[in-house]
């Protein structure tokens, strides 16, 4: 194809695929934790109590305005240095993460801030009407959040969740900066060894596109399966 030799890539296909799988794995775990962080922060930020809303707002503004790469560097290089000098051995060990876990933690913290803003907008979009209906039945605040606000909010934010998921999945490529062998790292290594720039980056691009498209398709499927409308 294009007069290029694709044999070499084909023989190394497993490396590329495992790189993709590793990236997906980190993205999924990081996003799952990020969703939990995002939900808690969103509810905290919309709380009437300032001792809840103020730290939540600070977290979002602080993290959202940092590049993910910087967060990864900080977690990977900064935290261990500080932990080793300032904390007891066993506590420090907990905070010193390997490359993959650093990426997962970074995505969770970074994605959490973005998801918190999405969820917050969703919570605010859930009309007072439904909350009042819950109150008038005698539901507690926590019950209203769990059974009324959360499901209605989720329905509203599902389309924008797709964007964030895809964006954060692609951000796993930053993991190459701390030598985690995901797809971008594998590709660059292959290029350095073989000088087959076009073949290698084309394959990486196709794999990213197909996967991102699949993530979008899954979310669209979920959207279609919901029969109710707000």
């Amino acid at each position, binding site marked *: 194809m294009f007069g290029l030799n694709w044999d070499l890539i084909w023989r190394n296909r497993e490396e590329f695929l495992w790189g993709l799988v590793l990236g997906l794995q980190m993205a999924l775990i990081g996003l799952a934790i990020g969703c939990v962080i995002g939900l808690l922060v969103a509810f905290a930020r919309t709380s009437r109590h300032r001792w809840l809303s103020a730290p939540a707002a600070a977290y979002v503004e602080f993290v959202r305005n940092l590049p993910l790469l910087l967060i990864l560097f900080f977690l990977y290089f900064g935290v261990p240095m500080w932990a080793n000098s300032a904390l007891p051995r066993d506590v420090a060990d907990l905070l010193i993460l390997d490359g993959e876990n650093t990426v997962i933690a970074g995505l969770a913290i970074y994605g959490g801030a973005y998801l918190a803003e999405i969820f917050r907008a969703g919570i605010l979009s859930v009309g007072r009407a439904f909350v009042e209906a819950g109150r008038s039945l005698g*539901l507690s605040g926590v019950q209203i959040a769990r059974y009324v606000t959360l499901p209605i909010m989720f329905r509203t934010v599902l389309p924008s969740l797709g964007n964030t998921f895809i964006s954060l999945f692609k951000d796993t490529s930053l993991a190459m900066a701390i030598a985690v062998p995901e797809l971008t790292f594998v590709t660059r290594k292959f290029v350095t060894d073989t000088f087959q720039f076009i073949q290698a980056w084309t394959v990486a691009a196709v794999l990213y596109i197909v996967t991102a498209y699949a993530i979008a398709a899954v979310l669209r499927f979920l959207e279609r399966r919901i029969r109710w409308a707000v």
Partner: protein
Amino acid sequence: MTDTGHASTVGEATAPNAPPMVRIRDVHKRFGALEVLKGIDLDVRQGEVVCIIGASGSGKTTLLRCINFLEPYDSGRIYVDGELVGYHERGGRLVPAREKEIARVRAETAMVFQQFNLFPHMTALNNVAFGPIKVRGVAKDAARERARELLARVGLSDKADAYPAQLSGGQQQRVAIARALAMEPKVMLFDEVTSALDPELVGEVLAVMEDLAASHGVTMIVVTHEMMFAREAADRVVFMDGGVIVEAGPPDEVLGAPRSDRLRAFLRRFTTSRGS
């Protein structure tokens, strides 16, 4: 309680022995500079149907919302079945009640809203069964069975599995009435429940409410613009204007022989604009 108290006057219940189900004493409420309720006194007996009429801005919806504390009142007292709503009284002062206690009183005063406010993510059946399951701790099967009965009572047996968005406004409002009934509340509050409906759908909702009113099992406080409904279903009609109760009494008297100029003006406007 067979006779429905045709001798009652402003703020007084007629059955002298039974304590009123709802007792409202000198209730004030202000939104910023605007005083919406300027000292309301009203008693509603168990099983009584009271219709509150009045122009928009007269405070009638606010009063209703104060009864189940969706709106906190500033002073005065509201008791439902003897229990002070939203506050504790300590040395003559109102101290806010805890969330849990407020929720408990709210469960006894079910509200039906102008815009239905059904939970959009639940089927009609689950909308009705939800409160009893989560608030009353009723077993799921029992709550669903009861919900089916209530949906049948409002004529919606075949819509149990439909989501609110798949129902007409009139159907949604009937589900909302069933949802309120499912809580077996001591008082049902209706907040202009037909105002958001297309004219051809008003009848089906009023029919359900007339049926409820005729059963006399449920204490109902109904804020409404439907004068025909007030005339036929109410035991007592209360006319509010400018944050006070101006007239109250049996529908024949209040609607048929209004004493105050304000009520006469209101009713005249009504006849000309609505033709009822």
